[in-house]
């Protein structure tokens, strides 16, 4: 703990104990606690380093005049301190522990009503209950009773935390008692502080919990549903976390109640309990059979909406039970079977009754949510073993396709069920989205390729329709990409289909909604990624012609009024052109025009997204070119991209620019690249390369200056955005270490560069003050030695010698400063403590204007 903090802490404690109402903001106490927790985690004893905390806790506990916020904090702090046995002992000695965790104490003070206090009580106990002494206190003070009452608290936060605490108590008991059983050696046990007495006295908890669960789960007319739901959540938690035999012991006490609930008041949390029990119980357990039976009862329920939920929950939980899994899959496919008229299921595989009831249910509005559950769970069905599947996956794909047609109002089937269902699902984007997701997933099915043409046709219909919701369009594109990605044989795609798709894409590229245009442009990018142009298998050519189709669309999108679309089109252009760059193909006239256009965007676009994309375009171009230096247009563009990019207003444009500079740097000094990701990188500066002579280095350095890399890095170094300056600093260190042999000579004016801006003058002056020796050489372009004292400025520009700058700038110091978070001062514990003191002074100052409240808001 920082000495300064330790010295301030007593005053802070006084202030907190006296009045907690005048805190700087509502996070102060949590943050204070965070600091205490972090300190404890480093192994420091809180009480040893800050004994004032003990007084603070006593003050608050005995006076009980503090507000619920401070009390809650105090309870948590007490728990934190009592988590160590020493802390526990100290707190017990000043007899504060029992008092502070006694709910009656707080009830009498009228504070228990506040959920904030109850949360503090729970979390405090949770922190404290790490050792047997704490558990003994918990038992002796009979805290299990209030804890059980909190299980169904009116506050969701309290009841949920109470559930967790109860599970924790049982787990602690379990681990202590198993230490008791396995320890064998009594001395070992005593050594670990667990006496037999403790275990016996604690076993009462189990009885309490069992009785509580049994009582709470009895079906009563008056029982409040949300409360019993909370108990079911608790039971699931306990079944998942506890081990045998405790697990089964609890289950046995409630199994009859569960059976009654299963038959009379079904709910999803109840299903969770049964599933948790089924997967966590050993096969030889007494209650296992009963649980399996309950599971069957639930799965074979006749209420369509419920049984679908059960089937979905069952499949999601991945139980190893092929018979039930096959049935559950059948239930989930039933609505599709009925709605589409495609026989996915063998007759009567789910029972005639269910089919009749389901058919009826599909004639009502509630069919939407039921169908959505079916569709979203199709991925669970497709991963099932083929022998469990009720039908070949090909049929499921066909059914989803038919269903998607139904959603567009196109019901070719005359079955009454189809007509009824289509009344509700036509135009419902919720259902369409679910079905599209399912279709995407189904691309993975083994016989997918046979249906490619059908999928193509349907998706084109969706893309073509101006009624399709933008979110549905986005999912249609995703499905298309997934299907194209997995298919190898595109022979089924006729010219007509291809033309249809191209038309639809063209239409959506000038949709009135920017969301649709953006998804279209993004789709073209993804398409280029799944099947690059010119590759031998050339599916893209088959599908969408070639660049002659894509590029004009994208060029148009560069002018889009929405900056998101402009940015996407730039990114897509890069994705589309990557393959030809990789091949080293000569640039076309069109591509040259694009480069000019992109440079215009970089200098003129008012939105950051587009400018960021431009810089990334050049980065992609540079990195995919096998020999970038031989591409003259690229090399011509780079200096202007670097100079414009680094002077941009958007921090991400600047950062991306430095990434481009890094590529150039690595290209110039390739051997400096780490050879292996796990290679040990020496901390020592790289002094000299074998066979490398000074003139080569100078030459390389000069080229970096000419390309604009060095000016960009130097500009970046003084940038006001920390991530930018940090990146620049790291790259400059890299450069400095590479050319270190050049820096030995005091003044090497052979490489110099111009820097814009006043900031550099200051940076230099600052460094000059810091470095009495070896002041940097900052001179005019003519390298006039006489002008050394003051940097020569040409307007705003400054000329500097690169070697001198690299030698004299204390980059390592700068790096350590830049590595710090920008809020490190504000976020330090000391700052927090001072803020608390300041806030309390301000509040207690009678002269302060009462009307001038400190209101933290965002204008």
């Amino acid at each position, binding site marked *: 703990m920082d000495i300064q903090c330790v010295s301030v802490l007593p005053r802070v404690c006084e202030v907190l104990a006296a009045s907690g109402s005048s805190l700087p903001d509502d996070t102060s106490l949590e943050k204070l606690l965070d600091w205490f927790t972090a300190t404890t985690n480093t192994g420091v004893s809180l009480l040893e380093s800050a004994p004032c905390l003990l007084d603070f806790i006593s003050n608050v506990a005995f006076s009980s005049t503090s507000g619920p916020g401070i009390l809650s904090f105090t309870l948590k702090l007490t728990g934190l301190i009592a988590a160590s046995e020493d802390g526990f002992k100290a707190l017990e000695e000043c007899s504060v522990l029992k008092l502070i965790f006694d709910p009656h104490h707080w009830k009498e003070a009228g504070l228990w009503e506040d959920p904030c206090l109850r949360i503090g009580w729970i979390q405090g106990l949770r922190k404290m209950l790490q050792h047997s002494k704490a558990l003994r206190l918990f038992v002796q003070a009979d805290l299990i009773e209030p804890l059980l009452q909190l299980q169904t608290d009116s506050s969701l936060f309290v009841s949920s935390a109470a559930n967790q605490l109860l599970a924790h108590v049982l787990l602690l008991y379990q681990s202590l008692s198993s230490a008791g059983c396995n320890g064998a050696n009594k001395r070992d046990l005593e050594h670990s502080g667990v006496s037999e007495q403790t275990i016996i006295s604690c076993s009462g908890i189990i009885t309490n919990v069992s009785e509580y669960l049994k009582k709470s789960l009895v079906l009563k007319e008056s029982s409040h549903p949300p409360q019993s739901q909370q108990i079911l959540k608790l039971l699931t938690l306990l079944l998942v976390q506890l081990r045998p035999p405790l697990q089964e012991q609890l289950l046995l006490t409630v199994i009859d109640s569960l059976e009654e609930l299963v038959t009379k008041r079904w709910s999803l949390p109840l299903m969770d309990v049964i599933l948790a029990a089924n997967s966590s119980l050993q096969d030889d357990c007494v209650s296992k059979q009963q649980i399996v039976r309950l599971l069957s009862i639930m799965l074979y329920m006749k209420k369509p909406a419920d049984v679908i939920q059960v089937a979905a929950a069952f499949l999601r939980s991945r139980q190893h039970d092929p018979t039930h899994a096959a049935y559950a899959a059948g239930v989930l496919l039933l609505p599709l079977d009925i709605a589409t008229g495609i026989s996915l299921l063998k007759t009567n595989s789910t029972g005639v009754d269910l089919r009749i009831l389901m058919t009826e249910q599909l004639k009502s509005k509630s069919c939407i949510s039921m169908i959505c*559950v079916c569709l979203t769970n199709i991925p669970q069905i497709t991963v099932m073993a083929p022998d469990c599947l009720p039908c070949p996956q090909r049929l499921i794909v066909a059914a989803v396709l038919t269903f998607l047609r139904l959603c567009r109002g196109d019901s070719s089937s005359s079955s009454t069920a189809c007509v009824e269902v289509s009344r509700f699902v036509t135009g419902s984007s919720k259902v369409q989205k679910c079905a599209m997701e399912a279709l995407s997933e189904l691309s993975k099915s083994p016989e997918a390729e046979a249906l490619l043409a059908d999928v193509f046709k349907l998706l084109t219909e969706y893309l073509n329709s101006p009624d399709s919701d933008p979110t549905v369009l986005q999912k249609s594109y995703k499905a298309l990409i997934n299907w194209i990605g997995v298919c190898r044989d595109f022979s089924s795609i006729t010219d007509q289909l291809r033309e249809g798709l191209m038309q639809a894409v063209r239409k959506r590229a000038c949709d009135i909604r920017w969301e649709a245009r953006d998804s279209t442009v993004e789709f073209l990018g993804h398409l280029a990624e799944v099947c690059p142009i010119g590759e031998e298998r050339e599916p893209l050519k088959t599908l969408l012609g070639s660049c002659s189709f894509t590029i004009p669309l994208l060029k148009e999108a560069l002018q889009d009024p929405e900056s998101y679309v402009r940015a996407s089109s730039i990114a897509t252009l890069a994705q589309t052109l990557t393959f030809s760059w990789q091949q080293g193909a000569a640039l076309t006239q069109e591509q040259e025009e694009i480069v000019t256009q992109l440079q215009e965007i970089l200098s003129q676009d008012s939105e950051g997204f587009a400018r960021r994309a431009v810089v990334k375009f050049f980065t992609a171009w540079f990195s995919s070119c096998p020999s970038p230096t031989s591409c003259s247009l690229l090399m011509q563009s780079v200096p202007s991209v670097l100079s414009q990019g680094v002077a941009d207003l958007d921090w991400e444009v600047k950062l991306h620019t430095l990434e481009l500079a890094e590529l150039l740097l690595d290209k110039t000094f390739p051997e400096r690249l780490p050879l292996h990701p796990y290679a040990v990188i020496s901390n020592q500066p790289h002094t000299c390369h074998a066979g490398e002579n000074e003139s080569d280095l100078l030459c390389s350095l000069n080229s970096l200056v000419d390309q604009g890399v060095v000016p960009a890095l130097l500009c970046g170094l003084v940038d006001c955005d920390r991530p930018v300056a940090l990146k620049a600093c790291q790259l400059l260190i890299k450069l400095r270490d590479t050319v270190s042999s050049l820096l030995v000579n005091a003044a090497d004016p052979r490489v110099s560069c111009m820097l814009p801006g006043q900031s550099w003058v200051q940076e230099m002056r600052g460094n000059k003050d810091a470095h009495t020796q070896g002041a940097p050489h900052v001179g005019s372009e003519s390298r006039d030695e006489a002008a050394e004292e003051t940097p020569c400025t040409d307007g705003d520009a400054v000329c500097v010698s690169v070697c001198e700058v690299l030698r004299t700038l204390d980059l390592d110091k700068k790096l350590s400063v830049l590595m710090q978070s920008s809020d490190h001062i504000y976020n330090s514990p000391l700052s927090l403590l001072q803020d608390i003191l300041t806030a309390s002074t301000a509040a207690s100052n009678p002269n302060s204007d009462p009307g001038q409240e400190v209101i933290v808001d*965002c204008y």
Partner: protein
Amino acid sequence: MPEIKVTPLGAGQDVGRSCILVSIGGKNIMLDCGMHMGYNDDRRFPDFSYITQNGRLTDFLDCVIISHFHLDHCGALPYMSEMVGYDGPIYMTHPTKAICPILLEDFRKITVDKKGETNFFTSQMIKDCMKKVIPLNLHQTVQVDDELEIKAYYAGHVLGAAMVHIKVGSESVVYTGDYNMTPDRHLGAAWIDKCRPDILISESTYATTIRDSKRCRERDFLKKVHESIERGGKVLIPVFALGRAQELCILLETFWERMNLKAPIYFSTGLTEKANHYYKLFITWTNQKIRKTFVQRNMFEFKHIKAFDRSYADNPGPMVVFATPGMLHAGQSLQIFKKWAGNEKNMLDVKMQVEYMSFSAHADAKGIMQLIRMAEPRNMLLVHGEAAKMEFLKGKIEQEFSIDCYMPANGETTSVITNPSVPVDMSLNLLKREMALGGPLPDPKKPRAMHGTLIMKENSLKLVSSEQALKELGLNEHQLRFTCRVQLQDPHSDSDTLHRIYTHLKSLLKDYTIQHLPDGTVMVESIVIKVSSSAEDANSKVLLLSWSYQDEDLGSYLSSLLKKGLPT
């Protein structure tokens, strides 16, 4: 009983972040999805695991509605939709949809600047999230699905801020978001229909304040800025790019004009243009005065306010600079701050001479009461305020309006039982018949009972006469009669027994029509009584009683009466 449930996950007795769950008519709606600016970890976002434990959010929630672009109302949206996973509809007004990403980007920058940030979203996620947003127009009813509809109302506060009326069947809730009831220099005052919602969920930031006239506050602000400028100092005002900044810009611009001041005012580079762009785009959302003068002079093109450049901070002499939080944190204003921090003459809205001044536009106690009068809710629920202040306002509201007022803490659920009124059409015939009976003319203010047959057909309810119902449904009318046998010992002939019954009933039931008919029956109202002797025992008589369902009570009474036997 149908009920509406409201559970705040945030903004329940606090002003940290707004996120309120509403269950109404089987639909689940999330109102706002805000971020708490005070934390660097997951605590800044609402804990969505409370909504569903293992199901997908999309399955549970029917829609998300965002009231305005402030991050404590929308900051967790990309996290929820792209990282936790929510695929359903998100609604916000057009200006909010346009401006939201700017603020989210600005905040994303701050998080990159800080270290130890966890779980933060990318630019792509912000975009993907925005693509799920369905824009709302004011006063336009949007059908989320067959049953759920929402309608946005003007809320003032910031450009694009809206209140929403959420309706399922006859149940409804209004959520105000942040609002103000007094117009300011660039925005109008909030307004809503008299929509009589079951619950009005209102913010209560200034629950106990009856604010001194805003002019005082403005005068104070101008005085302080002016004093600093006169001393030759520099003023740094941290603001969001959009929102109150425009209000302050207009204020300063007019003041500069009036006082003929020369000191330059700067706004962070690029942002003035952006702000102006949005104000021009959404001019209909500003107040009347601005809309009127827009043609002659654009109020958002300022004469004295110029774009700021880094190097200006070095300029000697007084100046005023507006800076955004993104800037304030690590960017330009941090540098400005460092530069100016040494000089006491400089005023900064942080510690050389730090002044916290509130210009946030929230409704004060008076405004909240005014809104209640406007909307006439059946219940009131307060959020986005401090517990103690809420408690005070709650008392006031319950006293003045005699309605229940709730203020759930985060995680607590308030349930309000609703008595939905079900609208029913009534047939003209039935109305005419009622009129013919001489009742008063129908009056919407005087409820009265009507009798008829209720038909539910194609999602509408209709009250018609039973004859019309039969006709419309193509049904035949059947008469339902109850019969019962009563055994009697009576040593007389059948006809004598019948007569004895007649006289007995005649003496008991004075007010009823009792007839002895020639066909050998006695009739009491619609009840028919016949007598027959048993074949074995002539003294033993069997009485047959038969009555229609209208006379069920009388029929049962007679049968029990006759079971007791006849007077000797």
